[in-house]
């Protein structure tokens, strides 16, 4: 039975449904649908736990990440030994380390906890940089169009053609050599100090930032181009709205959805880039723990002490999965075609 639609159309809306007294925004609807998506909720919860772990790493981790206890090197607890029985003949036991200790006797668990800081910082700074540059670039290109758009997009095409990982490696090599022995008080010196203070992360951010914005710029441009031709933008122009108002009130709020989804799905890429750089030894400076450098260290002894490579790799994998699940969920939740569904 459908409800009768009153002809004065004052009480009923789309599909003859009564119009609620409180306005339901698209955002609220999206959040509700996101909350119904189990994979996204699991992913989101894992990310939340990771964020809390990273923020309160000092409280969570039983040891400081750089503390070496050489007598305890490569020691494992009983349950890890049961998990990897091949270690039985030679492994030394110690109940003090939850996941075991590494080759200089540092607690693996504490290092993984502190390693979350590096990965999550990359997971949030990476999108921030690529959004700031990419959205600005892409919206200017898409909104003004014409020859400017043509020129700006050809520049992106050229940059895009260059393998980004190779580009980051070259950049990092260049930075590290340039900023190795600078005179105090110069710009290079300050940058070098900043980089050292962040444990080598600054240059990784610059490297990721300089390559990751291209995808965002293309996506933003495409979205802006399609929204720009919508009738409500034309309506705003008829009303006498200026460019700034059209851009910030009408176009950008309508392109945010796809951008958020793309950025969330790109985060695992940033995390793995950092892990890869640390793995090949040009990432964070030791002793700053990064999952990539821990996997690299563990890989040296993967036959004798597999726990040292497996646990950081597991942390990395779970984190990347979590971001992927959340991104997938966001994509479904923000899809306007699924609006109002379960």
């Amino acid at each position: 039975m459908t409800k009768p639609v009153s002809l004065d159309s004052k009480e009923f809306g789309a599909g003859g449904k009564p119009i609620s007294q409180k306005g339901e925004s698209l955002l609220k609807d999206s959040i509700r649908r996101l909350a119904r998506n189990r994979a996204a909720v699991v992913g989101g919860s894992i990310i939340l736990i990771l964020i809390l772990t990273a923020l309160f790493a000092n409280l969570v981790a039983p040891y400081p990440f750089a503390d070496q206890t050489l007598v305890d090197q490569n020691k494992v607890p009983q349950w890890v030994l049961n998990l990897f029985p091949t270690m039985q003949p030679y492994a030394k036991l110690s109940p003090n380390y939850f996941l075991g200790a590494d080759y200089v006797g540092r607690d693996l668990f504490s290092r993984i906890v502190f390693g979350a800081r590096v990965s999550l910082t990359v997971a949030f700074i990476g999108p921030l940089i690529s959004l700031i540059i990419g959205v600005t670039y892409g919206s200017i290109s898409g909104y003004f169009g014409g020859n400017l758009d043509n020129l700006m997009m050809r520049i992106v095409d050229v940059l895009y053609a260059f393998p980004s990982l190779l580009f980051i490696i070259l950049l990092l090599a260049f930075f590290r050599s340039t900023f190795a022995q600078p005179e105090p008080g110069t710009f290079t010196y300050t940058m070098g100090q900043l980089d050292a203070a962040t444990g080598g992360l600054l240059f990784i951010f610059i490297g990721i930032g300089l390559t990751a914005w291209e995808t965002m710029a293309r996506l933003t441009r495409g979205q802006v181009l399609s929204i720009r031709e919508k009738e409500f933008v034309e309506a705003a122009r008829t009303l006498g709205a200026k460019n700034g108002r059209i851009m910030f009130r009408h176009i950008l709020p309508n392109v945010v959805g796809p951008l958020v989804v793309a950025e969330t799905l790109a985060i695992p890429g940033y995390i793995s880039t950092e892990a890869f750089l640390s793995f090949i030894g040009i990432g964070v400076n030791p002793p700053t723990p990064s999952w990539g450098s821990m996997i690299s260290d563990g890989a040296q002894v993967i036959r004798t002490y597999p726990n040292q490579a497996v646990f950081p790799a597991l942390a990395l994998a779970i984190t990347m999965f979590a971001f992927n699940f959340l991104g997938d969920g966001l994509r479904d939740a923000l899809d306007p075609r699924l609006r109002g569904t379960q």
Partner: protein
Amino acid sequence: MKTENAEILLRVENLVKYFPIKRGIIIQKTVGAVHAVDGVSFNIHKGETLGLVGESGCGKSTTGRTILQLYRPTSGHVFYNDVDLTSIKGEDLRVMRRKMQMIFQDPYASLNPRMTVGEIIGEPLVIHKLADRKQTQERVEHLLELVGLNAKFYNRFPHEFSGGQRQRIGVARALALNPDLIVCDEPISALDVSIQAQVVNLLEDLQKEFNLTYLFIAHDLSMVRHISDRVAVMYLGVIMELTGRTELYNNPLHPYSQALLSAVPIPDPVVEEKRRRTILKGDVPSPVNPPSGCRFRTRCPIAVDICAQSKPEFREINPGHFVACHLV
């Protein structure tokens, strides 16, 4: 008739709009142009409704948008109360926009889905800094009532409304600045037939109440007949015939108008039986490369040699009845 002596509100003179076609990856060359509107002239009197009809792609909407300077014309002039809109820009044009508004075809695409109804209708007031927050809300609530919606819908979002309700929101937005001229760009063609009548009646009521002037673009001939005082028939970027609605529907002079009107079904089975349709042969030629002389000659049942050689003048055959045809 009110149209004959009333003052002229809008004067369109020889309006031309070409859209360039570009080729090339880095260096773009203009290789041609879509002749969307090609020399259109007409007047709209204060308080009247001028219907603009024609088939899809004939340049009706482009004409409307070019008049409002959403597209800048390639050449020609648009005089609004003797101000040439084509020669002003920036702040001057922004101020002039308060007097001219538009109602759009697609009620789903013409409302920003991220804004509430109150923000959408109140936006023109905010843009032109005409009212503070409280005054804006009062005015929006008044406008909602005026177009037959509940004032409590202020905080609702557009996706909660049906097509007809959204179109009413669009009408309310267009009215917010108290404009004189409203360009209605097929405001009813996206709506159900039962809702069409409601919206058209609303537009008529508002016209009476606020002495509005409409340029009513449509392809539904019976609807245009109902709402218009005068009707212009457009084909491939050119106006073929322009006259009072009774004159056009009873005595169409241009062969294109005759063919177009013969396609309207008559709601009387006996008369409908006798209706003779003039079936036009072929397709509409490409506006990129329109035919020489008369635009309609390739499909005209009575075309002769002169039609290919020279463009027929848009002349006044009878008082108030303009036709562009060599043979009339």
